[in-house]
Structure formats: C-alpha cells, structure tokens
C-alpha cells in the first residue's frame, strides 16, 4: 500500500539519504574506534559507510572508465579502495562521505541557477479561453491556432502572443521586459504570453502560441547564451585536458619516489580541477539568468566578459537619450504665413521616412483647418480623419542623407534641410534668420530651413524631449568610472545644449549615419572598449561595430536581438548602468573564482607534498572550495 510513495521518496531523495547514512555510519564507526577501541567493529562500520556512500560514485566511475573519460568519481573511487586496501578505513569512509556531501550540496545549489529561468516559463498559463465555432472553449494554450481570438479576464495571465482586437487594459509585462510598471493596451497593441492583464477584459488575436511566443524565444536564447562557452571557460577546458593527466603522472611519480600510497591517492583527489572548472560557468550562468529576469538579454559569456571591460559608453541621441517622439515646437515664416511654411515642408517631406519628416507631416495635419479642405482628400491608409488637413504628394523628391530633402511641387522647388544642405546648394541664409535659428538651437531644438525656389521662407523648430532617466543614467555610469559620449546627427549647438542637459562627458555632432561607426572605431583605436546604446534597427551598424552593442526596446524585434550583444527588452534606459555593472561584477566574479581555485589547489598541493594534509582533509578543502566558488558565482543572481 505504502510501498509506492516510499520508493518514490527514496528515488527522489536518494542522494540525500545515501549521504546521510554514510555520514551517520562514518560518525558511529569513528566514535566506536576512538572511544571504545572496538577496532574490528569500528573498521566494519567504516567500510560499510564507504560502501554505502561509494556505491553510486563507483558506478559512475565505472561508466567514466568504460567511456574513457577520467573524472573525479574515478579518482575518488580509486582513493577509497586504495585506502581500504592499506587499512586506512577511516580515511576511506571520510573521503566518500565528504565527497557525497559536497556533490549533494553542489547539485542542490546548481539546481537554483538551473531553475531560475523555469520560473519565468511557469508564468505562462496552461489553458486559454478561445472563441471557436461561435462559443467560448477552454483549450490548452499551446493548441491555440494563429489568428484565433483569445479572451483574457482582468487579473488573468495572457496565454498567447497577439494583438488586442477588443478591450482596454493595463498589462504588467515584467516576465518579458523586466519592467513591472503596467503598460496601457488597447486596440491594435501587441501583448505577450506570460504577461499579466491587470484591469479590463481583453480580446487578443493570436500571433504565436506554445513554443512560438516571445517569452519562449527569449528563454531559448538565454539558455543558449548560458551554454555558450566564454573565452575563460574554453581556456580552462583546454587547460583541464592536460592538467588531469598531469596530476596522475605526479601521483604515480610521488608513489615511485616515496612509496607512500596515501600520499599519491591524496594527490589524485585534491588534484581534481573541480572549482576551476565549475567556477566560471556558474558565474556566467547566474549573471545571464539574473539579467534575463530583469529584461536584459545577454547573448553569452563571451559578450558578458567583453562588456565587463567596457570603459566608454556611446549613446545615440535620438530615441535613446531622448524619447524619440520628435514634435514640432514652433514654425516661423519670414514674410510669409506660418501655415504655408509647414504645409509646403510637409508636402516635400511626405514620402521621407525620417523621424523629423514624420513630425513635420504630423504637425501639418494637426494644424487647425483653415476654411475647407480641398476636395482631393488623400485616400491613404493612414486614416486622415475629417478634421485633419490633407497633405498633398510632391511631384518628385530626393533624400539627401543626413541633410534633408529636395522636392518639387506645383512648379516650385522646395528644399527642407539643415545648414549643410543649404550650403551645399549655395542657398544664402539671411542674417536675421541665422540669428533666429541659433537662438532655437541653443535651447536644444533641431531646426530645419524651408526654402522655396532658392530663398529661405521659414524655419521649423523641433524638440525631442529628454528621457527623465537620462541624466541619472549618465551620472551612474560616470560614477562607475565609465566615459560617456553622445552621438548625433544634430548640429553642434543643439547637440551641445542637449549634452549639457544630460551631463554627458563628450558629444559628437553633425554625424552622418555611417560616421557614427567611424567615431566608434576611433575610440576603439584609442584603446577604449566601447559599448554603443541604440535602437537596434537604425543603429544596427554602429551596434555591430562597437565592442558591446546594446539594443533598447528589443522585445518583439528579432533583428535587434540578432545584432546586439545585449538587448534590453523594455525601452528603459535605466537598465544600462545595471547591465554594465552586472558585466563588470561578473568579470570580477570569474576572476575571483579562478583565483580561489588556483590558490586552493596550490596550497593543498604544497600541504600534501609536505605531509601536512591528509586524504580526508584534502577532500574536505577540495569540496569546500567547489562549494565556495558556486556560492560566490550565485551572488550574481542577486546583483
């Protein structure tokens, strides 16, 4: 009746039970021998302790040997058998017990790092309420088909990736973005599986379910990142290949010279590169796991180790330090109506995809309508509603990268652009206009000139609000001893004004997109390890050039994740100091672990060769050092 649960309990806790039994027998056997002098009984119990604790170890050792790998279990088995053969029962039992205890604790602690990500996956509900065949059905979440509509109750977890088709709510996206402040979701907005619907009911049209959700993809990537070897790890692995055989040779020669079997067995046990091999991976896995829970995807140990050396962070200005939602702050016509300036500019910019162009076109549309709209209302998909003005298409238009546009409309040539473009086309800027422009730029605004048939008729001043977090983020990096640089296509004065507001160390203005890469290369040539923060799509080339590319707002955009070394799932600048300091902490942690391992082995080796360290003591210190590096690495889970 009760056999089933007992067997199950035993199977589940076998390691703990075996370790405890072996420990009890070891303690009992030792006390018996020490206090009573029943030596034979004591020896018997100690041998029993060694056999019980050692059975599993020996079994694995057998596999190791038949598989021609040489692991610590083989060495421990050899040491225990050797100790029994020469009559050192206490040593045999001690070695086996200490090793079992050590590896039990190692397994337990490693489990924590291994399950850190599982917690994220458990966020996804198992079932979903789907609208099927006219009614609502409860189905397993992974069976929801693309295109099906899922209902999510207030307070419920969203079971699939999709876009909202009905309802309005606030959603906590922490499992995906690490950002727990709720995000407002309404018609057309994307939602992710595993996130929590906090307020209203939502109907979501499924775009991905089961293993094809953003959360699942992120976790797969995180695991791949954790499994990828960092340079330190591969170095150690290569080293270990020679090291273990070297230890065996040393043990054999020690025996040949001293005829002391215990000495050479001890050498075998302490010579195992346990802490050295385990330390760095634990540090890196913990760091990557921690980052993942905070919405930062680290691409692997290699990237992490490089990021730990960062001493200079470059920021793209627009959309990174600023909110990226550029709006028109002011339109100024010179001897001409403001309205005419903006509508002419909007026509010229209509087909451009630049963010300044979008701002100009939006501003033109939002201007109060004068009298009536022309009957030729544009039938574009971007829904120009009745009260919005329509913006006519230009007859033709050309983008001059990093400068502006040249277009033709109604028989006029219209140029909208910065000073460089006007200089290029030998268009003269009257002094009073230049003066006005300078004034706006000193306030951190970006100004474009509107030119009709060769003469400047007006200017448009645009503002891109700074992110509230920007100055704090820059200060935090400076505190960590990191130089900060802003890269922008804006002119000198605007850049200088923004740089001043943010408190950034340096800025580079008037950069064409490809020049941002050049600037990064210059810093690298000066010996800096450069991180670049950008949006992952427009800044992809710079992100790839930098030693560490950090993409912001990457949830859902796979390209950004591809190019970057680190991707911030949320559009949250404040994760940058966290990511950089975590990388630095990881790099130190890896070094600490390597140092600790090398120190332990050196001290033990010296101790054994000078006969200060016995087999059991060597085992104790060896296992303690392994546990210590694991615990040290796991500190990064709580960075």
């Amino acid at each position: 009746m009760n056999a089933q649960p007992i067997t199950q309990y035993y199977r589940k806790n076998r390691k703990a039970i075996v370790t405890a039994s072996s420990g009890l027998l070891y303690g009992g056997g030792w006390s018996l021998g020490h206090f009573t002098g029943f030596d034979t009984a004591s020896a018997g119990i100690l041998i029993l302790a060694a056999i019980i604790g050692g059975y599993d170890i020996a079994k694995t050792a057998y596999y190791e040997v038949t598989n021609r790998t040489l692991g610590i279990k083989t060495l421990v088995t050899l040491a225990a058998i050797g100790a029994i053969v020469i009559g050192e029962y206490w040593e045999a039992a001690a070695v086996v017990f200490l090793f079992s205890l050590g590896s039990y604790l190692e397994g337990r602690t490693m489990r924590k790092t291994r399950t850190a990500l599982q917690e994220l996956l458990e966020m996804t509900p198992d079932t979903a309420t789907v609208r099927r065949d006219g009614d609502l059905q409860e189905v397993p979440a992974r069976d929801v088909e693309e295109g099906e509509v899922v209902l999510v109750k207030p307070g419920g977890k969203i079971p699939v990736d999709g876009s909202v088709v009905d309802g309005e709510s606030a959603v906590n996206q922490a499992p995906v973005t690490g950002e727990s402040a709720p995000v407002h979701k309404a018609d057309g907005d994307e939602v992710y599986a595993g996130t929590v619907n906090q307020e209203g009911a939502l109907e979501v049209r499924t775009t991905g379910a089961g293993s094809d959700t953003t959360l699942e993809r992120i976790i797969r990537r995180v695991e791949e990142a954790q499994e990828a070897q960092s340079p330190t790890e591969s170095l150690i692995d290569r080293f270990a290949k020679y090291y273990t055989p070297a230890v065996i040779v040393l043990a054999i020669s020690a025996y040949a010279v001293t005829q002391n079997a215990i000495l050479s067995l001890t050498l075998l046990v302490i010579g195992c590169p346990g802490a050295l091999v385990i330390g760095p991976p634990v540090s890196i896995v913990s760091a990557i796991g921690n980052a993942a829970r905070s919405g930062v995807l680290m691409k692997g140990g290699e990237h992490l180790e490089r990021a730990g050396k960062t001493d200079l962070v470059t920021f793209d200005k627009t959309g990174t330090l600023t909110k990226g939602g550029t709006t028109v702050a002011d339109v100024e016509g010179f001897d001409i109506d403001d309205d005419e300036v903006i509508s002419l500019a909007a026509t010229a910019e209509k087909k451009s995809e630049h963010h300044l162009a979008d701002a100009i076109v939006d501003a033109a549309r939002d201007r109060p309508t004068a009298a009536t709209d022309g009957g030729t209302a544009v039938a574009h998909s971007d829904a120009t509603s009745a009260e919005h003005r329509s913006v006519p298409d230009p007859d033709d238009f050309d983008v001059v990268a990093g400068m502006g546009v040249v277009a033709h409309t109604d028989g006029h040539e219209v140029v909208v652009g910065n000073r460089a473009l006007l200089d290029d086309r030998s268009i003269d800027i009257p002094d009073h206009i230049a003066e006005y422009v300078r004034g706006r730029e000193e306030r951190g605004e970006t100004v474009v000139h509107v030119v009709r048939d060769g003469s400047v008729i007006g200017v448009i001043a645009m503002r891109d609000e700074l992110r509230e977090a920007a100055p704090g983020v820059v200060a935090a990096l400076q505190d960590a001893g990191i130089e900060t640089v802003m890269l922008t296509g804006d002119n000198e004065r605007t850049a200088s004004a923004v740089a001043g507001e943010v408190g950034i160390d340096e800025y580079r203005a008037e950069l064409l997109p490809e020049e941002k890469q050049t600037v990064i290369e210059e810093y690298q040539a000066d010996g800096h390890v450069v991180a670049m923060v950008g949006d992952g799509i427009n800044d992809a080339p710079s992100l790839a050039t930098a030693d560490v590319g950090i993409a912001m707002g990457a949830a859902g955009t796979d390209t950004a994740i591809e190019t970057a070394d680190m991707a911030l799932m949320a559009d949250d600048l404040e994760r940058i100091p966290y990511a950089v300091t975590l990388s630095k902490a990881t790099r130190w942690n890896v070094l600490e672990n390597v140092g600790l391992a090398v120190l332990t082995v050196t001290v033990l080796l010296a101790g054994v060769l000078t006969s200060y360290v016995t087999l059991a003591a060597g085992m104790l210190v060896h296992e303690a050092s392994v546990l210590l590096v694991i615990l040290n690495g796991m500190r990064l889970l709580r960075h």
Partner: protein
Amino acid sequence: MYMAVRVLRRTVMNETTQLRVINFDCPTCASTVERALSNVDGVQNVKVHYTTGRVEIEYDDDVADPDAFAQAIENQGYTPQPA
C-alpha cells in the same frame, strides 16, 4: 527558420527531443550522461549542457525508444525531467 529545420530533420527520419536534468553535480557527470545516451540504440546526436542541465537528443524514430533516454540518465544516477 526553426520550422524549416524541423521539416528537414523529419525527411531524414530524425526526431529531436529535450530533457532536463537539474541535479548534475559536476561537469564530468554531464559528459558521462552524454556518452551513456549516445550509446542508446538509434541515438544520432546528443548534447548535454552542464550549466543549464538541458539535454538535447536527436534520434532515429524507427529505432530509438524515447523511454530508454530517461532510463539511461537514471542509470547514471541523475533525475531526468521534461524540458
């Protein structure tokens, strides 16, 4: 891309499966399990990751018995779980 890989694998009659072992206690243990699994009939390719405990097995559907994978892992003294 992922789908394409799956389709490709199907055409050569190979399946892939994942298991997870959360109680590896040393890197060599992971290699031992890796070798034990590659000795199971019909297994084409095995990768065992010590750090994450993830076990990836590619096997010939006609020959291999997926239950044998878990058994092989248990024989080494570790507890497999569904990934």
